[in-house]
């Protein structure tokens, strides 16, 4: 596709049913009330010249370029700030207007450097375009403005790794300032000074962009009409000349992007305005951190070795596939059919995941397939399916615009799901109320123009107690939506639940000591959620990664049903998914007990459909989950594993246990971009493809199926699905596809919720939210509207059961884990980009009191010891943590956060309890034993033959 230039209507779209009809240059148009004259003209195809207006932010009316004449109105009002009125008659082009515009332009140009030919924005500059539009021919004021003299100009601010700020090009239109405020919600920029002296500044005068509050989302760069704020990649390569629409491969928000290219080189990624998930916004990861895709560490040739301490040997695809298949087959001959299995990845496309689970079920002949969602959102699937009937969130992201009370539990959206956080903050600035339940004082609790009504700073591990206490208030204070419950929910289950939560032991007063929050706060929060009209729950891994993760998901579903907060816009129970395709990988049948579309393997009818389509007999027995695979590896019954794009050695709990299990296996095949931590234990490495090479679909947290389109050919020469199909054939099951679109056709054929999905439909409609079928041909933005998917909603009894992981004198603190904005998960991608400059190492956050008690100063290296192991990290003293709780991230493998996490897990799904580990912290100036051993493995298990032996 040629370069896709999206229309800029100048001011945002108004969303109201009421319309107004006006005449512009003699032509009639009807638009929503509140629309600007500028936008109405633009929608008619009669753009008005503008500089300070752009449709991503509200009008400001400073440049005076967009003046118009309106019948019966004196003077020449600015069209961007003038709303249409019924019957208005507007002229956008007259001799008087032409003259004024030219005059304004002259003023701008008199103080603008005239180096257009060598300017980075040449060909992509609105100032240049507008000068052309208004017919600027002469500048009567001369070119004496101070910005014309290089010596007078301030030096460029190059501190941000991805964009520069060249104030000499700035026309002080304030688009950047408004983008930072209105779109991103960070308020990092201000205009300082007045008149000709005014200029844009990131924070205080001494700040540069890097040192400021800026989170590098790129909104200001997008908004800037000149070369002032400009991507460094455009400076380096020139303006792009073609676009490919695709989807970010980082988090579960699933933002749509235009990959702007020159040849097969990505020049920049620009968020796409029509993207359903992001509506034109982005975060630092998707916008800028894509350089890993062509990083020198990428492995693009298949490799094999006999033993994990041998150097890797580069081989052909045929040899690598034959090697893997031979080993897998001989393991099965010796140890039985169930002795091998595989793990799918939430970073891969639906099509890639589908073929891996198909290979396991059809070619391996068992159901030993699991996915990395096991360690993040498996409780979401279980909990929401049990209560509502579907393993997915209930809303689209846009729904947040209609929420009145937002309850954020165990999620840190500004870091983990930044673009959704911006949408949420916009709604909060417009007046919605916020309740945050989190042990840590996350940014959302108090940030510019956002302040939580209640921060419930609960003790890690007491989520369910909190939910029961909130429910107690709802039930005992008469806040139940009786009509909703009577009509929509199972009567007997509700009665039982109501009696249970009403018991005195579930009152806030009874539970407050356990939760660590005063009962009044809990009561007020419950009243606010139940009575504030539309109540919406958003949650993350702080809910799921607990021994009661599934119970907690059901407890939230109970609360939403009891208050009638389900089945329309603005409400719901919404998981914020970690990885881009967590939803999709679960949908595609990655669980050992479920075929695609969440149908149990024992369901003979569902299984029969697959058997007929795939021409094979499938096992009706559930297979092994990831933790069961490790246990079976250690007892010798599980010997071979195919790992698609996931780094279990780093991301799964209790590293000692995991590595022992991996070491004990005979054949591990890793399909990935890099030699990751798991690859240290592998015998076969199959190079994978980055999202820039993939052709397929991702499904985000709102069930939105988005296209991922290749912008370059596969670096390794083969698509991942083709590699899997070949391995499958080598294993004896004939799997053939000519394109990934054919795989989607098969998914649609076999999965009722996907029956209306095809690449052609997606290419036409942009994206679709499943279910897409005969009942909902255009998809389903809001679930459970007329009734629950399971029929009636089911209240579940959610008894609070404290975790077995307890603090004591030896391990008196609780460690909880999380993530930060600039890094992503195990960091394999973001660590290979400039994003690392924001987070060079993981740190341990500790409360000042806990630090002082242990003689720890900020920056000291400390040892974190749990019952499982020890690692050492630098300490950061932080008031965000309550006393008794410490916190770290796990973005760097050497931090080894999972060396200390335990084997405890969710009762229903075995999702690990990452969020609660009892630890002791002591000062230490050495790396831990594990960290030393880790460095040794780096030396021994990662060599390739071409490298000189050490």
């Amino acid at each position: 596709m040629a370069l896709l230039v999206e229309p800029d209507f100048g001011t945002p779209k108004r969303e109201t049913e009421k319309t107004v009809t006006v005449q512009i240059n003699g032509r009639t148009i009807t638009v929503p009330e509140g629309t600007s004259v500028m936008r109405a003209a633009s929608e008619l195809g009669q753009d008005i010249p503008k500089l300070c207006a752009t449709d991503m932010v509200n009008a400001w009316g400073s440049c005076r370029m967009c003046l118009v004449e309106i019948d019966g109105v004196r003077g020449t009002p600015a069209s961007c700030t003038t709303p249409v009125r019924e019957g208005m008659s507007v002229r956008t082009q007259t001799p008087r207007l032409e003259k004024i515009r030219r005059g304004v332009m002259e003023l701008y140009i008199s103080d603008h450097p005239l180096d257009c030919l060598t300017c980075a924005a040449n060909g992509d500059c609105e100032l240049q375009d507008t000068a052309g539009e208004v017919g600027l021919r002469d500048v009567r004021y001369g070119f004496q403005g101070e910005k014309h003299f290089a010596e007078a100009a301030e030096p460029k601010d190059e501190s941000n790794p991805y964009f520069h700020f060249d104030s000499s090009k700035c026309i002080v239109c304030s688009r950047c300032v408004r983008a930072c405020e209105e779109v991103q919600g960070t308020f990092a920029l201000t205009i300082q000074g007045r008149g000709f002296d005014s200029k844009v500044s990131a924070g205080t005068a001494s700040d540069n962009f890097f040192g400021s509050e800026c989170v590098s989302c790129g909104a200001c760069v997008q908004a800037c009409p000149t070369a002032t704020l400009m991507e460094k990649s455009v400076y380096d390569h020139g303006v792009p000349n073609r676009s490919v629409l695709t989807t970010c491969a980082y988090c579960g928000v699933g933002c749509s992007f235009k990959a702007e290219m020159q040849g097969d080189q990505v020049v920049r990624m620009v968020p796409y305005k029509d993207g359903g998930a992001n509506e034109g916004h982005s975060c630092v990861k998707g916008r800028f951190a894509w350089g890993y895709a062509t990083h020198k560490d990428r492995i693009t040739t298949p490799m094999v070795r006999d033993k994990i301490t041998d150097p890797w040997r580069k081989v052909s695809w045929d040899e690598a596939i034959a090697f893997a298949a031979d080993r897998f087959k001989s393991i099965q001959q010796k140890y039985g059919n169930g002795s091998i299995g595989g793990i799918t990845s939430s970073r891969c496309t639906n099509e890639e995941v589908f073929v891996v689970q198909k290979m396991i079920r059809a070619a391996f002949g068992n159901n030993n397939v699991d996915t990395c969602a096991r360690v993040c959102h498996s409780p979401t699937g279980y909990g929401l399916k049990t209560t509502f009937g579907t393993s997915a969130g209930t809303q689209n992201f846009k729904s947040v615009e209609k929420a009145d009370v937002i309850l954020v539990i165990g999620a840190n959206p500004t870091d983990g799901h930044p673009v959704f956080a911006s949408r949420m903050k916009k709604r909060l600035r417009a007046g919605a109320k916020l309740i945050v339940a989190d042990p840590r004082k996350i940014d959302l609790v108090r940030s510019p123009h956002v302040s939580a009504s209640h921060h419930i700073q609960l003790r890690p591990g007491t989520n369910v107690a909190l939910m029961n206490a909130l429910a107690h208030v709802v039930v005992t204070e008469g806040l139940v939506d009786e009509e909703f419950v009577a009509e929509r929910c199972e009567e007997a289950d509700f009665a039982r639940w109501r009696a249970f939560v009403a018991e005195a032991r579930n009152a806030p007063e009874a539970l407050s000591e356990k939760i660590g929050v005063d009962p009044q706060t809990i009561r007020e929060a419950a009243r606010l959620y139940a009575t504030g009209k539309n109540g919406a729950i958003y949650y993350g891994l702080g809910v799921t990664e607990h021994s009661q993760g599934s119970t907690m998901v059901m407890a939230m579903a109970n609360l939403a049903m009891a208050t009638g907060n389900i089945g329309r816009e603005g409400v719901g129970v919404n998981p914020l998914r970690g990885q881009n395709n967590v939803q999709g990988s679960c949908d595609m049948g990655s669980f050992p007990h479920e075929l695609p579309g969440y149908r149990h393997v024992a369901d003979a009818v569902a299984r029969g459909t697959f058997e007929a389509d795939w021409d094979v007999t499938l096992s009706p027995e559930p297979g092994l989950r990831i933790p069961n695979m490790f246990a079976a590896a250690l007892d010798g019954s599980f010997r071979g594993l195919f790992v698609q794009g996931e780094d279990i050695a780093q991301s799964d709990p209790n590293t000692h246990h995991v590595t022992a299990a991996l070491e004990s296996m005979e054949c591990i095949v890793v399909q990935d971009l890099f030699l990751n931590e798991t690859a240290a234990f592998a015998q076969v490495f199959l190079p994978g493809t980055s999202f820039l090479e993939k052709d397929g679909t991702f499904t985000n947290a709102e069930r939105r199926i988005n296209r991922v389109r290749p912008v370059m050919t596969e670096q390794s020469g083969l698509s991942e699905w083709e590699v899997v199909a070949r391995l499958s054939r080598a294993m004896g099951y004939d799997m053939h596809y000519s394109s990934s679109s054919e795989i989607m056709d098969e998914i649609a054929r076999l999965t009722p919720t996907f029956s209306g999905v095809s690449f052609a439909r997606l290419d036409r409609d942009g994206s679709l939210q499943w279910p897409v079928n005969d009942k909902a041909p255009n998809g389903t933005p809001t679930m459970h509207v007329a009734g629950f998917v399971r029929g009636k909603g089911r209240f579940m009894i959610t008894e609070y059961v404290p975790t077995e992981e307890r603090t004591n004198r030896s391990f008196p603190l609780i460690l909880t884990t999380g993530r930060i904005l600039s890094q992503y998960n195990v960091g394999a991608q973001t660590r290979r980009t400039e994003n690392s400059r924001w987070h060079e190492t993981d740190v341990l956050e500790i409360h000042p009191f806990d630090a002082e008690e242990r003689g720890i100063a900020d920056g000291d290296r400390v040892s974190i010891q749990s019952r499982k192991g020890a690692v050492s990290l630098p300490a950061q003293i932080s008031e965000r943590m309550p006393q008794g709780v410490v916190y770290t991230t796990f973005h760097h493998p050497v931090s080894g956060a999972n060396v200390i996490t335990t084997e405890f897990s969710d009762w229903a799904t075995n999702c690990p309890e990452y969020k609660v580990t009892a630890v002791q912290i002591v000062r230490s100036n050495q790396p831990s034993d594990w960290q030393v051993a880790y460095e040794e493995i780096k030396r021994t298990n990662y060599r390739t033959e071409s490298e000189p032996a050490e």
Partner: protein
Amino acid sequence: MSDDIEELIRMANQIATFFQAYPEEEAVNGTAEHIRDFWTSAMRARLDRYVADNGTGLHPLVTRAMGHLQQAA
């Protein structure tokens, strides 16, 4: 007692602890169905053997649930 049986006991007991909030028959069924739907046959067989051996440390609902599953088989 080997590690893996301890792991299975813990998992089974956790499941029973969730369902014990329900009336006993429902709790037995809930526990049994959960183990049937999510565990491999090897894991179930291992726990069956343990129940037959002595079953120490198991939540009473687990013992009943396993009996239930055997009858159904």
